[in-house]
């Protein structure tokens, strides 16, 4: 019995080795950094709300066998283009968010289609191709916004342009216009969020119980019991947090202090739901089939190229929307470099969450972004604490992001080699 449970534990550790490693790293970094809990939580909360949408955009291409989509950079550009023009029209507040989304969508669909076309011609090298396409698109984007704006393309808002009347300024601020256009729709504190989440979890449990009672299905009862327990745990956790508020003043203070833009979280949840739903549809099933074996999918009559293009379009559109969500929360934009790090950070985050080049889920994305940004946020302080130099932490950030991607790719290669060996049996 003892041996069995040790073996099971070993299997769990092997399965989640990446995640476990980064949980330990995150905890260690937090302790070493000496950052105040409020600051720490605030950093994670705001980064979570800013970046998760784009990380979720990576899931569909992974499942469809296109690997990690580095060309979400192109989607981000579509988002930025939409934002620039929306702001130049003088639209403010929530409408400016909606208009940006509206403008970015057709752009992103077009870009996604083009990228998909290219990737269909370079099967087997999707990741490096998508990365290079990102750089190529960057050049075109710069050409349009540095040179064509003001010369070939008229632009209404002179304040956003360079002094000579050609090109957009390299840095734009959206205070009072586009900033917080989504965040302010429903901004709340972490404390309130936990409260709301707790109530939502309770409601879910009740609905679940009622539905189970109505259905009276006999099969799969253990599974359902496990699900009850899961829901119950969430509920108890929420209740515990409420009690915590009564008991500990400090905990209450921390949680009330941390801002939590619920409207962005709702967008993220909707995308999670979309991802879950799409993989239950025929289209999602095709994604999986194409991702696992193109040859077989094709012989079965699935239009492989079309399916791959749809996956790229969806991913690009979500990346564009994600960039809009991000920019409205940050409030400023480096016109020519805001998109550059997007793919790198998103890819690193989802990998930290335990995804691979061929497997990814909502769970990976959500967990990954929290862990990755927990480490990312405190690394300058860690650098200061350990080496008396915050610059070291800055280097560490870069090392972390690239290192994670490298390790993930290497592990994937090893795994594939193993699998092909096994297949020879």
């Amino acid at each position, binding site marked *: 019995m003892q041996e069995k449970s040790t073996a099971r534990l070993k299997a769990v550790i092997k399965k989640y080795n990446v995640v476990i490693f980064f949980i330990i790293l995150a905890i260690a970094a937090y302790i070493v950094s000496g950052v105040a809990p409020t600051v720490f939580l605030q950093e994670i909360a705001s980064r979570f709300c800013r970046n998760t949408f784009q990380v979720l955009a990576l899931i569909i291409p992974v499942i469809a066998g296109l690997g990690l989509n580095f060309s979400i950079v192109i989607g981000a550009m579509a988002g930025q283009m939409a934002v620039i023009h929306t702001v130049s029209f003088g639209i403010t507040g929530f409408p400016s968010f909606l208009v940006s989304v509206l403008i970015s969508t057709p752009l992103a669909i077009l870009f996604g289609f083009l990228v998909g076309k290219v990737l269909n011609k370079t099967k087997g090298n999707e990741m490096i191709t998508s990365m290079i396409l990102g750089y190529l698109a960057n050049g075109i984007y710069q050409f349009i916004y540095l040179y064509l704006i003001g010369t070939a393309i008229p632009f209404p808002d002179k304040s956003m342009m360079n002094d000579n009347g050609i090109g957009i300024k390299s840095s734009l601020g959206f205070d009072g216009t586009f900033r917080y256009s989504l965040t302010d729709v429903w901004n709340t504190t972490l404390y309130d969020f936990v409260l709301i989440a707790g109530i939502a979890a309770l409601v879910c449990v009740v609905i679940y119980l009622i539905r189970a009672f109505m259905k009276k299905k006999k099969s799969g009862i253990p599974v359902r019991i496990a699900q009850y327990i899961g829901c119950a745990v969430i509920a108890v956790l929420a209740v515990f947090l409420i009690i915590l508020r009564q008991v500990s003043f400090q905990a209450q203070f921390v949680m009330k202090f941390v801002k939590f833009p619920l409207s962005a979280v709702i967008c993220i949840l909707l995308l999670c739901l979309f991802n879950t739903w799409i993989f239950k549809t*025929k289209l999602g099933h095709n994604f999986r089939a194409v991702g696992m074996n193109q040859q077989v999918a094709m012989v*079965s009559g699935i239009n492989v190229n079309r399916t791959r293009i749809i996956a790229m379009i969806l991913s690009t559109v979500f990346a564009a929307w994600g960039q809009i969500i991000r920019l409205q929360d940050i409030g400023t934009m480096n016109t020519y470099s805001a998109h550059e790090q997007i793919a790198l950070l998103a890819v690193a985050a989802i990998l930290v969450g335990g995804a691979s080049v061929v497997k990814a889920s909502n769970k990976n994305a959500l967990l990954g972004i929290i862990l990755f940004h927990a480490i990312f946020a405190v690394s300058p302080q860690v650098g200061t604490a350990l080496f008396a130099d915050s610059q070291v932490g800055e280097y560490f950030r870069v090392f972390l992001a690239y290192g994670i991607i490298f390790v993930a790719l290497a592990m994937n290669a090893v795994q594939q080699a193993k699998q092909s060996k096994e297949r020879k049996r």
Partner: protein
Amino acid sequence: MDTYLLEMKHITKKYGENTVLKDMELHVKPHEIHALLGENGAGKSTLMNILFGMPVIQESGGFEGEILWDGKPVQIDSPIKAMEVGIGMVHQEFMMIPGFTVAENIKLNREPLKKSVLGKVFGKNLSIVDFDQMERDARAALKQVGMDIDEKTLMGELPVGHMQFVEISREIDKKNVKLLVFDEPTAVLTESEAKVLLKIMRKLADQGIAIIFITHRLGEVMDVADHVTVFRDGELVDSMPIGETSMAEIAEMMIGRKMGAPFEKSVPVVKEDVPYAVELKDFAVDMPGEQSKGVSLQVKRGEIFGLAGLAGQGKLSIANGIMGLYPSTGKLFINGEEIHHITPQKILERKCAFVSEDRKGTGLLLDNSIEANIAIAAIKVQKKYIHKFGPFSQVDKRKARKHALEMIEALDIRCTGPAQYTRRLSGGNQQKVCVARALSLDPDILLVSEPTRGIDIGAKRLLMEYLVKLNQERGMTIIITSSELAELRSVCDRIAIIYDGKVEGILPATASDHEYGLYMMGLESGGKGRSEAEHE
């Protein structure tokens, strides 16, 4: 009565300059099992690719001729079209997704869908897949085939033998299917599984489905087919009902020359008191699926030694272990010298060469030319075909080519020239290239694994004859591992039967069938029965 379901008329297909099919004819009736026979490279696969509308045909410039379906001309330009018409294919290499369940594979791209509003508005792609219904359908199809497989298991976890039946289930689950193509369906099956398969084919034909049956096993054709069409070198030889011909006649038509008496080796050249070329003591190899667990045997110099046994019993691992391709324990002596820490390099240096059973994996560089494939081992190991310029060296292309041409001539490799990529060769010719490469090392000891797997009679015979010639003329020691006992018995001096990873017994080629049978099943030493052997 005489209405044909499928007629393919005057089919001609060229790959570049190379004509692979010339004025081919095929007529198939409903209710009929139509056997398609021909050597490897005779054009069977190409004809089936045309029938199935595979993209490779369109990409290489289409074909000439016409296809009639139910008497009407049809254009089959994609697999989807072929499916719509009612053609199903049971592939030689499984067209299955290992990460999907059996049910998902059977219903791939024909998933039952739930009715939903979104589905109605946006088309079937956004409808939810009905997984429960899918499993029910899959179970029904599996039942029709007579297989009791859990439809929820992942495809990748099924034994190879079962995959074939899942493929068939998938094809018959397509309700409109009128013609099924079986491409060498029994090649990977055990004998009992093959029997079940043939029974299912008969059953399906009786239900009105026409079947095109491609195989190398003439026995099966005689058992089950109604009609037989024979190809040779891309041309139609003859087509006739099975009752009007015989196995010998068909075999003769296939290879286009009179078959002599079954192959006989003249005299064993091995004398009694020669030293051992290879000696194994308690040799165990950890090769997944083919473990050997302590083999002791001696192979005399100048002997042709056979390793036989059922699949999964470990016979394949021995040669792989000797070559150092899989980790092994125990002792290995080559020409009396013990080899510690076996690596392929060490073994090759001792003038041993290996022809792997895995042609496409470890055997060939598929995207390299024939000459490069033949020369590479000799270049690496023996520094043959090399110019020396002080510290630099360069491959002597002219010498390598000359050698390749000699080999192509000697082994009758059918190709467009020494520069052709080996990927484009048929299985038999790929095998010959592997043998040629091993021979260019000029070995004293040659290990050959499954030399005739998936290749045709003509090529088989030529290979075997060549091995015997090498043995007799050069005194080469040859160790052949094969699943085909008859073949081993025709050339070997002695044959070791491997059962459960150990040597069950070593028999002379002349021992009786009965004796061989007992050893193969592990019954001689009171071992386990057949059922368990298959299970492994």
